[in-house]
């Protein structure tokens, strides 16, 4: 579970400061997707960066499974990221020298110790999750041999590799066409359910909203409109 309470973030801007996130309170519980939308520059990515402990808030509190992310040292923050937070980048951000499978197993190698002992388990997990995103037969290809949609699926699989409880997804469909984008959103929704992550999903694309349980909108750094949607009941209506 991730919990923002009254979080404000400003960036230096010459001699002034620009407010990117303004007194935002938001809670995402396990197994749900919270969709964040809003115009460009409204602070969506900044909110995710806060949740990922990549940047510290000016004020307010961010709790990640009960841990206050605010006061963490760089070292503790990267450990927290490694173990509890999965990040899906806007661009796939794969490493050019690694195969699809290695993009996932590298997640086991980021800490300071114990990587060797965990390798067999990491290998199994990587194979399994690569199959889940439908890329079992692409395991040994490098990023330049993969399509944009395939790269984005590896991006998602990598974020889930270390079984994080928080999944942060920043505009995963912006470089894809409608159909591929839709598939990616489906994967995020399915994996959120099966892995039980608290997922924050940033997207502009209104066509996906229908499938979301909850959509919140940001405007000039503020959360302006929070409405929960009974997606599950909507689904059951259809049947």
């Amino acid at each position: 579970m991730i919990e923002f309470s009254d979080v404000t973030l400003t960036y230096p801007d010459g001699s002034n400061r620009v407010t990117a996130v303004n007194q935002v309170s938001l809670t995402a519980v396990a197994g749900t997707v919270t969709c964040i939308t809003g115009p460009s520059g409204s602070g969506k990515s900044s909110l995710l960066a806060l949740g990922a402990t990549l940047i510290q808030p000016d004020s307010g509190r961010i709790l990640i499974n009960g841990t206050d992310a605010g006061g963490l040292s760089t070292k503790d923050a990267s450990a927290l990221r490694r173990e509890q937070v999965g990040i899906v980048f806007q661009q796939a951000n794969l490493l050019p020298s690694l195969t699809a499978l290695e993009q996932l197993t590298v997640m086991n190698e980021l800490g300071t110790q114990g990587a060797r002992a965990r390798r067999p388990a990491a290998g199994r997990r990587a194979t399994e999750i690569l199959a889940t995103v439908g890329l079992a037969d692409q395991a040994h290809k490098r990023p330049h041999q993969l399509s944009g949609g395939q790269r984005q699926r590896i991006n998602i699989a990598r974020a889930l590799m270390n079984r994080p409880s928080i999944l942060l997804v920043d505009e995963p469909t912006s470089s894809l066409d409608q159909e591929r984008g839709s598939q990616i959103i489906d994967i995020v929704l399915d994996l959120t359910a099966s892995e039980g992550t608290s997922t924050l999903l940033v997207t502009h694309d209104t066509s996906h909203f229908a499938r979301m349980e909850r959509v919140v909108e940001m405007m000039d750094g503020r959360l302006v409109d929070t409405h929960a949607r009974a997606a599950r009941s909507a689904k059951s209506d259809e049947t």
Partner: protein
Amino acid sequence: MFVALRDLRFARGRFALISSVIVLITILVGFLSGLAGGLAWQNVSGILALPFDKMVLAASDNGAATDFSSSSITQKQADTWAEAEGVTSATPVGITTSRAESESGEAAITIVGYGASPNQELSPEATVADIPRSIVLSTGAADALDAQIGDTVTIAGFKLLVSAVGDDWWYSHTPVAYTSLADWQDIAATQREGTIFATGVAVTGSPQWDQVASNTHTTAKGQLASLTAIPAFASEVGSLGMMIAMLFSISALVIGAFFTVWTIQRSGDIAILKALGAATRTLMKDALGQAGVVLATGVAVGVAAVIGVGAIVPAALPFLVSPLTTALPAALLVILGLAGAAVGVRSVTSVNPLSALGGAR
């Protein structure tokens, strides 16, 4: 080194390029070291062959050390050293370079007179040389004079019987021959005025070195320090040493520059890894490990080439292949290279993981 090794494989061309630069630098350093070692060997091996803890030479008027060519020791000085408390042995040594003739050849050789006063242990070669009017030739001297055991060699009018051919001894780029001190004194007397006893004293034991030295107006130097008393040795080794030092710093700079550029180039990847939760220590280890692999490979190939060439180099070229001229420079290259790389990969720490996040730039 998960990512580092895969980067090496993926960016093969780039790493092959830097590795071959390291190979070439290693070869250059190896050659210079081998040459410096070879030249030094041709300068000093005749002195190093003598058993001594410290070499006593005459002090100049202002108390400074003199070199082998100008030092002159009196019998009294030598006796004082021999009788000093703590001295195990004190053997007078004479060193003179002179023309030598045999039936079939003629060459400049350095005659080292060694030995011969009561109660003194003699080295095996000196024992042989102690037979009056006999001489022990080094292999170099035997070659130059085309002389063998039993032949007669003429030096400064004295006829000396070749009693043995020893090892590869040199002094100041001339092959060495050992005689008894008495014979050496005869030869030296034809070259300098006045009575000449010896050039220095080879002392073993543990006396009060400084005290005895000042009492006798002499200086006592250890094995390595005594080599600087060989004329031209210091300047020769110094200039080659300076070239080697330059090469060392060039290689550190080149490697530092390469890894600086390489780290900057992959700062995007580093930001991604950091955003995914990579510990900075892990990333540093990865980057330094990569530099280590590149360096070790390049240096190993370079050293192999040097040893290979050392094996086929003509005997006339002074070229010494020993751990001192191969393993030591290789280790130094790796250490300096890693230092250079460490400066290069230091920027890993300053990469902001935030930059990996699409929008937040």
